[in-house]
């Protein structure tokens, strides 16, 4: 009898575990109509967690009031988002809509080539003047970022500023006796040295991190010196990293001067933000997300912090600084409810939704209409990161498969003095161009050439995709 009970128990456990296995993805299993057949559920995936409170409350409002009986179900996926999307697509569990931002590293050309997502041009055309005014969708077409060959796959609604330098003004004053901030990179390096000397081991001039140190400010300074951040030469359609040399050398001085917070290259970005908020770092570089970080996540209480433009090499801006178009939504090609999905995108791109969103300080407005609509007294410190006229979006460089270490890793290790800058650049030029040639030859990517490329207006040129 006892045995029977045990085996019955075991059997039920097994059945339960099986049903658990099969039901694991049930929540994300895409869309469907509910029992009554009247309501359509639109599954939305996003990898933004920071704005959930606001977005969820707006979704709730929409779900209870929209006349089309659409129910939005949003799932947040923050880890490995792009891979998850492509895996979901191939296993038939893709959502109807995928939230996309310029900063998440989607290879839009591959997305379009493999027909992961639907082009939105027809919907945009039909959407009317209001949509156009709020999003300026006709002006925000960026090849390889949100569009491929003129087909638009997602419309950005907000923008993340390019990187800025953030200064601890108390430490600047202590070190220099003034509040004047550096405008060139050599001046910034020397300020970092002065702060460090004044700090005598208590605080330091500069800090980096192990989490993508390349993009925090180094990349932006290189762009403003005219060196493309991908290392891509659009005019000649090949890679050329030589413009990085002076910036690498100047940044290396931060390390040889010992102006960098010791150990910061092996610490996570949040640990360093906490150190900045704690008054241990004089100069910190990052983009507009830092507005929320230093007011909410690690609020700065004991000193004044100021946001300033990136320093240039010689006082002149020679190339546009990259901004990230964000918060757009693509319709996955597997959806059965494309029209309803577009209605959801219209909600997320509506003036009311965006006004509330922007006034919470989650991002910067990306159209004149929204810039005028937002009450900046409500947005907090994000207004310090307002867009500059030299900021723009570059067409994405061909996404090639390189052998060995990527450019960010190689150049940053040259910055840290772990390898010679000349050999590093030579190595990158050789490997990247070899990979580009072989990927173009195999038909995997096309060579992008923009003969009339203007580094100050990178999105304005005439694009050509070449097969060789």
């Amino acid at each position, binding site marked *: 009898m006892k045995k029977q009970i045990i085996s019955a128990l075991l059997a039920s456990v097994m059945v339960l575990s099986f049903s658990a296995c099969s039901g694991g993805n049930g929540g994300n299993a895409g869309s469907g109509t509910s029992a009554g057949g009247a309501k359509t559920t639109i599954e939305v995936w996003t990898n933004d967690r920071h704005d959930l409170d606001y977005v969820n409350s707006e979704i709730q409002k929409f779900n209870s009031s929209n006349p089309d009986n659409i129910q939005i179900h949003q799932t947040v996926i923050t880890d490995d988002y792009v891979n998850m999307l492509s895996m979901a697509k191939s296993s038939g569990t893709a959502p109807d809509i995928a939230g996309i931002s310029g900063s998440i590293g989607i290879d839009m050309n591959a997305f379009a080539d*493999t027909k992961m997502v639907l082009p939105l041009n027809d919907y945009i055309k039909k959407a009317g003047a209001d949509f156009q005014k709020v999003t300026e969708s006709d002006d925000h077409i960026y090849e390889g970022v949100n569009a491929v060959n003129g087909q638009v796959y997602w419309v950005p609604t907000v923008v993340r500023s390019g990187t800025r330098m953030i200064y601890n003004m108390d430490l600047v004053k202590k070190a220099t006796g003034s509040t004047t901030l550096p405008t060139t990179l050599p001046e910034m390096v020397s300020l970092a040295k002065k702060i460090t000397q004044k700090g005598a081991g208590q605080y330091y001039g500069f800090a980096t991190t192990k989490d993508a140190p390349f993009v925090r400010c180094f990349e932006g300074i290189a762009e403003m010196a005219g060196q493309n951040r991908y290392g891509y030469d659009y005019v000649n359609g090949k890679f050329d990293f030589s413009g990085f040399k002076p910036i690498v050398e100047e940044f290396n001085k931060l390390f040889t001067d010992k102006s960098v*917070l010791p150990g910061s290259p092996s610490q996570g970005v949040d640990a360093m933000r906490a150190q900045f908020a704690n008054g241990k770092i004089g100069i910190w570089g990052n983009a507009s997300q830092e507005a929320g970080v230093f007011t909410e996540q690690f609020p700065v209480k004991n000193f004044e912090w100021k946001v300033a433009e990136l320093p240039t090499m010689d006082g002149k801006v020679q190339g546009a600084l990259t901004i990230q178009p964000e918060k757009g939504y693509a319709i996955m090609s597997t959806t059965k409810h494309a029209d309803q999905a577009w209605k959801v995108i219209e909600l997320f791109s509506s003036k009311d939704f965006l006004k509330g969103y922007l006034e919470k300080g989650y991002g910067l407005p990306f159209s004149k209409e929204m810039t005028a609509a937002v009450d900046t007294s409500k947005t907090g410190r994000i207004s310090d990161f307002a867009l500059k006229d030299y900021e723009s979006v570059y067409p994405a460089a061909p996404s090639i498969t390189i052998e*060995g270490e990527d450019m960010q890793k190689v150049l940053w290790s040259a910055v840290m003095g772990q390898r010679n800058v000349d050999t590093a650049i030579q190595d990158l030029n050789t490997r990247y161009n070899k990979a580009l040639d072989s990927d173009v030859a195999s038909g995997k990517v096309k060579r992008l050439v923009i003969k009339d490329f203007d580094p100050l207006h990178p999105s304005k040129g005439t694009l050509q995709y070449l097969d060789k």
Partner: protein
Amino acid sequence: MKLFQKKHASLEDEGKASAWLMLLPSIFLLVITSVYPFIWLFRYICYDYNGYTAYFTGAHNFYHMLSDGIFWGSVVHTFEYAGLKLIFIIPVSFLLAALLSQKILGSSLFRAIYFMPTVISTAVYSLIFGFIFAVFNGSLNSILSLMGLIHSPVDWLGNPKIVMISIIIVALWGGLGNYMILFISGMGSISTDVYESSKIDGANGIQTFFHITLPMLSPVIKVILMLAITTAFKDYESILVLTNGGPNNRSQVMFTYIYQLIFSSNVTPQIGYATMLSVVAALIIGVVTVAYLILARKLDDVM
């Protein structure tokens, strides 16, 4: 007689059928979660696959692997890591087990304390160790300088010369308790009669340890060693969190490199090449394990 045979045969058939029926769930899971991914893996060895489209590249991945300095560097680091970890973790956990299997006051409390890291997530304790190892205001450096052992802060994770030692320290802390418990349970299975008779013969503690505990544990030690070797070669979680293979690839082991090839966000995923490398890595670990098993059998013959 015939009737009996028939009945026997039908019973046997029934037994077979129910055996298969009972095996079915586990076979099903094995095929789905183990065999299928393995075949899937082999499919992409000859492809350049970015997650969307696979491009056939023939033997290119193989040649690339042969000339990939970072990969072979990571193989060397894997051996270095595994060797250092095993040299320390096995004797120390054995010693701890020998001490804590005695019936002394508080031994179960200490067992629990040493075992604790095994149940904590590797990512979590590695993150905490990251703070402990911090150069600026890190607690390890403060303690060492208070004790007068160091004069300037040590860059535990950023200095290529000592980064491996720091990683080994975390690995020891994380794995010690696990092997200790295995040894303790092995020791518990040795019959007390043997100890009693050796006591009557006048053996002291050290003699008992070397002539009774150690030889009688040898089958258990063999299994534990094999587990420890395969685990040590496959460890990468804590390295990923602590250094991500840095500085300048000094702590790059095979699996951190493979992970980065697929999941690193600023390059195109190289799933085909990473697949090639994981097959090679599996072969390397397989060879090491087989070599160990042969060696262990030889040792058995000698003993």
